[in-house]
């Protein structure tokens, strides 16, 4: 009984005209899938190229290492002894925004090709450290690029990658007590937020 019903149904579907329309519908789906595969391959290849050529992560790492380990960076450098103290930053220097700005601009001159902008922020509960204001490398571009980091910008405009790195540093402050200059050290975290446009 059931077999007869099924055969009747198959027989109805199996009519040539109905089969054609039925298959035609799947045909469009197949074409759509085909195009999807095609675009997927193109996107995958592009992703592979971007992934292979993207050095933004390395750039921020190197920038941070430079700041900490080079005498032209932010670490305290004793000119007379010719000795660098990696990771120890001068309080007097950090509170002089103009000086720190000039130092960064002088050490990292990208000329006309600005490839990154960085915000420096100290995170600490120590009052002396919280007095230090955040400062920037390439501030103009930082403000401009900050709006281009969202998903919307990724689709509509040129996308800017945002990367963060936190490093442990020590802030060295010279204080004068009864005519004698003494050093105070404050351990803190330096947070670097880098913005870099995707090339």
């Amino acid at each position, binding site marked *: 009984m059931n077999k007869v019903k099924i055969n009747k149904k198959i027989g109805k579907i199996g009519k*040539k*005209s109905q*089969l*054609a329309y039925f*298959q*035609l519908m799947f*045909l469009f789906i*197949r*074409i759509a899938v*085909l*195009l999807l*595969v*095609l675009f997927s*391959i*193109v996107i995958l*290849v592009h992703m592979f*190229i971007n992934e*292979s*050529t993207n*050095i933004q992560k*390395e*750039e921020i790492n*190197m920038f941070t*290492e*430079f700041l900490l*380990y*080079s*005498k*032209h960076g932010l670490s305290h450098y004793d000119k007379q002894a010719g000795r*660098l103290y*990696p990771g120890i930053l001068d309080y007097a220097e950090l509170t002089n925004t103009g000086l720190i700005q000039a130092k960064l601009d*002088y*050490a*990292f*001159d*990208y*000329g*006309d*090709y600005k*490839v990154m902008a960085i915000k420096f922020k100290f995170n600490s509960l120590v009052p002396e450290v919280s007095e230090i204001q955040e400062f920037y490398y390439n501030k103009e571009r930082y403000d401009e690029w900050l709006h281009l980091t969202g998903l919307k910008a990724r689709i509509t405009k040129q996308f800017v990658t945002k990367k963060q790195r936190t490093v442990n540093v020590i802030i060295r402050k010279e204080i004068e007590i009864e005519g004698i200059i003494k050093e105070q050290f404050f351990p803190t975290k330096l947070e670097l937020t880098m913005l870099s446009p995707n*090339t």
Partner: protein
Amino acid sequence: MFKNKRGITLDKVFLVEAILIVVVCASIMVYIGNLYNDTSFDKRIIARDLAFLADSAQSVPGNLYYEYTSPLGKKDHSFIFSKNTAIIAEGWFAKVGYPFFYNKNMMFESFPIAFKKSFSISNFNNVLVISPEKRFGLKQPKDQFYVETPSQTYEISETKQVAEQTLECTPPKLETKFTFDIIAIDADGNSDTPKQNIAGTQVEHLITHDISKAIIEELNIILEGIIIETRPEIDTTYDTESKLLLIPPSTSFILQISTEQTQNQNNNPVYAYIPKNSELSNYLACTILQNLKKELPEVITETKILTQNQEDNLLLYANKDPTGVNTNKQNLAIKIGIGNILHDNNLLYEKETTNIIAYSIAQSIEEFQESINN
């Protein structure tokens, strides 16, 4: 097969689909094939590699020497390093570049690397050198460190005694008003064998460029409406073949900044070289030296004005009108020789001092313009 109407429609659609599949497959193959043959992808990677190499070389705390070999393994590539961009090119064309930072605290010297598989990069004592051959710093044979002292090639002018003893500069009387329309500033020392200290860490043209740039900045503030001609990267103010100055003909003043290189260790004078019979140049030179001595009394102890005795660009410049003395604008030319690059550390290597030098020179030019027209 195609006689049945319904069958025809369906088969046609399948045919279109089959063609589409073939086209898509062919496109993918062509796309991948192009990627395989196209070297732009490789060049993009290598350009970044080169830029990152330059970044790293400038970031190391100590000294560094590294030999880079192209991963492409071919000799038909050229590598070009300007101050901010690393470029890889096939031959000299199809260039792909990527920016790297330039640490201005260092000196940068790069040589063309053409059709080479490898090159060297070194950072010794804050001198970054990129060269096809193994090279550390700006090393040269020892005998090239010393040149003849300026006193052997220049003769002391009659006016020198007055300038040296009293430093009282008297402005010459002019019939017409003098204005600086165009000033040409030439940072001297950009040659294959530049003057430098023994360690190779201080090179003349880098010092003179810094001073020239600072002078330009000062002049732009204090003198309005003047045009300053300068070519800080290449020394092209004088063409040795045509023996002509490559500056606008209406230039009213040419100023050349140079350093000396002598074996005298201490108390090296600051020299001002002027063309013969140029009272204007003599007066301006006197003003400059006076201001320099006033601003840097501890570092500059002696100054001298010397008249040129050999043919070079200043003399040629002055000889455009040999008879003109007072009213001839083109006769105003001065070459300032500041300090001895081998020994005058305080005068030449300190940024603060070179800025004061630039400031003094710019102020002198302003003073000169004011006093000469009153």
